[in-house]
């Protein structure tokens, strides 16, 4: 590292650092957060140092000179960090894109509030801001209507209890069994079940572990073995009445419930999601069907064997 680089990196008023420093690798910011620089290879350390200098330069441009382009550039540079953090939470019931949007707000706040005199890296400051914004979003927006915290907690507890009881009992639990296992009254269980409809469903388009994989690789892709079921289904008359407008997962779940006769718990086990989630998906799919064709009870006529109506 040259003496000039040393000076420019440490002097918050130095605005002469050339902006030709390589832009930060999208995945590197979080790597640096997780692993620290002590064990990083020399090349990576150098790249990180370049990126830090560039951050400092842009932050100074923005904070000391009001350069909005520098701010925009920082936002663009750190969007991969936002995506990386959002991916961790993508399997918890919200769309990945929504989480990226919310996380971006955290990033912008971090850039706007960054204190040049503190001498910390932008990634160090931005990461908790982004995560905090995502967590706040879950707390505030996960429920589409205001549900008391006690019922939210019971609802979450019930999800776990159902998952534990179904394999243990080899059947769906009763309300009383749920109440006993969740340390609640049957009335509270019913109320919590009622409020569960207010919670947004987990999207199977989300990454299954929320931490890795391609953005568009969702849980539905892990149901690959069931693809033949879709084909079989399409050979039948079930595509009538707007069925084709549902996505694969919705068609599959409705097919299992209404044509194969599986219970919600059995579907939950087969698809690998909770019974309460299956319940919400069935309702949502039926609602979509109704919106699509206007009235479930005035559907298009079933297809004839040769595919004509």
């Amino acid at each position: 590292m040259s003496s000039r680089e040393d000076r420019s990196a440490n002097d918050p008023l130095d605005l002469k650092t050339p902006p030709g420093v390589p832009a930060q690798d999208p995945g590197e910011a979080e790597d640096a957060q997780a692993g620290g620089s002590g064990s990083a290879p020399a090349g990576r350390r150098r790249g990180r140092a370049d990126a830090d200098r560039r951050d400092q330069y842009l932050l100074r441009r923005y904070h000391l000179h009001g350069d909005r382009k520098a701010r925009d550039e920082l936002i663009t540079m750190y969007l991969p960090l936002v995506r990386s953090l959002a991916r961790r939470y993508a399997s918890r019931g919200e769309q990945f894109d929504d989480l990226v949007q919310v996380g971006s707000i955290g990033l912008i706040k971090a850039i706007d509030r960054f204190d040049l005199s503190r001498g910390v890296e932008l990634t160090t400051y931005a990461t908790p801001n982004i995560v905090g914004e995502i967590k706040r979003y879950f707390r505030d927006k996960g429920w589409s209507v205001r549900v008391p915290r006690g019922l939210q907690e019971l609802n979450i507890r019930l999800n776990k209890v159902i998952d534990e009881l179904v394999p243990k009992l080899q059947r769906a639990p009763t309300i009383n069994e749920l109440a006993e296992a969740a340390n609640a009254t049957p009335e509270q269980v019913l109320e919590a079940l009622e409020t569960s409809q207010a919670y947004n469903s987990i999207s199977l388009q989300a990454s299954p572990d929320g931490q890795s994989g391609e953005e568009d690789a969702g849980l539905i892709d892990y149901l690959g073995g069931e693809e033949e079921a879709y084909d079989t289904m399409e050979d039948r008359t079930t595509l009538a009445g707007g069925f084709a407008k549902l996505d694969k997962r919705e068609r599959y779940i409705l097919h299992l419930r209404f044509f194969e006769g599986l219970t919600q718990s059995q579907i939950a086990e087969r698809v690998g999601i909770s019974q309460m989630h299956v319940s919400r998906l069935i309702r949502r799919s039926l609602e979509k069907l109704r919106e699509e064709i206007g009235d479930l009870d005035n559907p298009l006529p079933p297809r004839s064997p040769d595919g004509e109506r």
Partner: protein
Amino acid sequence: MTERITLEVPASLSALPTVRLVLGGLGARLDLSLDDVDDLFLATDRLLEAALGAEDLTDFRLVCLVDESSLRITAGGFRSQRLRDQVADTPGGCIDLCLLLRRLADEVVVEEDGDGFRVVIVKHRTKPAP
């Protein structure tokens, strides 16, 4: 012994949660499984929503009979031929009200009721395996 519970609520979508809570309570007393209770909720919701779309109603009137082995829900006071057709038709190849009710309930019966008709939905308790 059979218990009779009569429920009358305004004919609106906002009354459905109340109906569900009552049915859930009865289902709990009968020790119905969570799956069965949820099926009942969906069946009743769909029937009452269809009734709302088919005719002008002031109230939903439901009579629930609970005995040791089943829950029998009767929704009455309907007059719409359209609703009658929707419920009574043979299930088609798509998920219509007729098919939904028959998949979600153990029995679905349309009974004459003066000038109109009522729809009876029955759910039996399945004894848990020992």
